[in-house]
């Protein structure tokens, strides 16, 4: 019977107020975890003996990279739900997550460049991880462009879902090929990609920041999905009543 319950919340009309009620909770958690993570990362964690204070970029760089990969997988999950169960909300969730995922991919590249400059002496290295992150960013852009150019929302959801599933199958292949490529051309890059040896406080700082980004993602995805729901369900009675009250 719990199945039935889940599908009950999958109706946009019930999910809209639920997301609105839950959102402040996730905002609060994001701020809490973020503050704790930054305090650990900036004030408690010791200086790295090789990279000095420059390594502190890790506290945003690594969590942002994690989130960019995780969000793509979450989108693929919602896409699959959309294709299999034909639930409208899952398509909207996939679309609501996309800009945030692209943002984290961009932040990962940006902080990676700012980390690379002092450590490797260059803004960009064709390192396997950086290159895969760049391709992931392209995948996000492709998904958003596809969804934006289809007027019929149902077709947009489904086409986007197919693209996401193709992408999620391809990501390991892309990662493997890029890894292969970068080991063959090692002369071109500087092999200093090893992360600094982790102190416990560093690890905790990173985990807390990752949790904070995670909560942030949920909060902002809820807010965005609410906007999408209103737009798509504009002809229903409950949205009309809601708008009349507002």
């Amino acid at each position: 019977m719990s199945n039935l319950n889940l599908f009950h919340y999958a109706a946009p009309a019930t999910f809209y107020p639920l997301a609105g009620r839950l959102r402040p909770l996730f905002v609060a958690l994001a701020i809490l975890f973020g503050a704790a993570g930054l305090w650990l990362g900036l004030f408690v964690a010791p200086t790295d003996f090789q990279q000095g204070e420059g390594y502190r970029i890790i506290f945003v760089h690594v969590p942002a990279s994690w989130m960019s990969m995780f969000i793509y997988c979450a989108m693929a999950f919602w896409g699959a739900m959309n294709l299999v169960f034909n639930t409208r909300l899952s398509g909207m969730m996939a679309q609501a997550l996309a800009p945030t995922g692209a943002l984290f991919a961009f932040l990962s590249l940006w902080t990676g460049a700012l980390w690379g400059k002092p450590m490797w002496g260059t803004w960009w290295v064709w390192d396997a991880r950086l290159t895969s992150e760049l391709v992931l960013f392209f995948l996000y852009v492709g998904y958003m462009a596809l969804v934006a150019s289809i007027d019929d929302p149902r077709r947009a959801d489904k086409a986007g879902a197919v693209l996401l599933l193709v992408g999620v199958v391809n990501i390991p292949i892309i990662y493997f090929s890029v890894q292969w490529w970068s080991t063959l051309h090692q002369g071109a890059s500087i092999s200093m990609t090893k992360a600094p040896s982790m102190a416990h406080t560093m690890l905790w700082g990173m985990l807390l920041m990752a949790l904070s980004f995670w909560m942030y993602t949920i909060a902002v995805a809820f807010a965005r999905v609410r906007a999408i729901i209103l737009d798509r369900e504009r002809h229903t009675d409950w949205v009309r009543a809601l708008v009349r009250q507002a």
Partner: protein
Amino acid sequence: MFEVVLAVVRRDLKLAWRRQADIGAALFFFVIVASLFPLGVGPEPDLLRKLSPGVLWVGALLSTLLTLPRLFADDFRDGSLEQLMLAPQPLGLVVLGKVIAHWLVAGLPLALVAPVLGLQFDLPGDALAVLTLSIALGTPALSGIGAIGAALTLGLRGGAVLLSLLILPLYVPVLIFGAGAVDATLTGLGPQAHLSLLAALTVAGLCFAPFAAAAGLRIAVD
């Protein structure tokens, strides 16, 4: 079951024969792009030899992309695509036939022209052979993955640009192993590993991509 595939291949080849100009244009695009590079980077043979695997492979990739938007568009416009979708045979096999036909008219010619272009880049004989082989082996995967993009963007405004945005990131592995095979021949490592990975990509691409493309077509036409 494979009669469907053969029938679609035969039909598409016949249709392609009637518009040879399109195929010729994509092929010449490849030739011109490859010939522009020496004008851009200078004529030193060592530099050109180093660049040639990447340049020729990227050229082949872009040339394939030019012909992809028409993969389903003509059939969509004259309604024959809907007929094919109503047929009792699985749509995936129909798409497989179209992908094979696309490779025969758009991929294989690239492989045949590539050694001539390789000569312009001062490639030695064994590298020329590997170049031809790698393009012949890799382009079916390009056609297969491209079919997914062509299906998803069917009938959309600005479909051609959108198609390249969707598909080019997915072409990365094919590019790496294809150009890598030629590069490995040049540096004396031997191309076997690259070529077998490329063959694996092509087999996987031809097995799965047509069915994903078929799903995309159903979404686009419904």
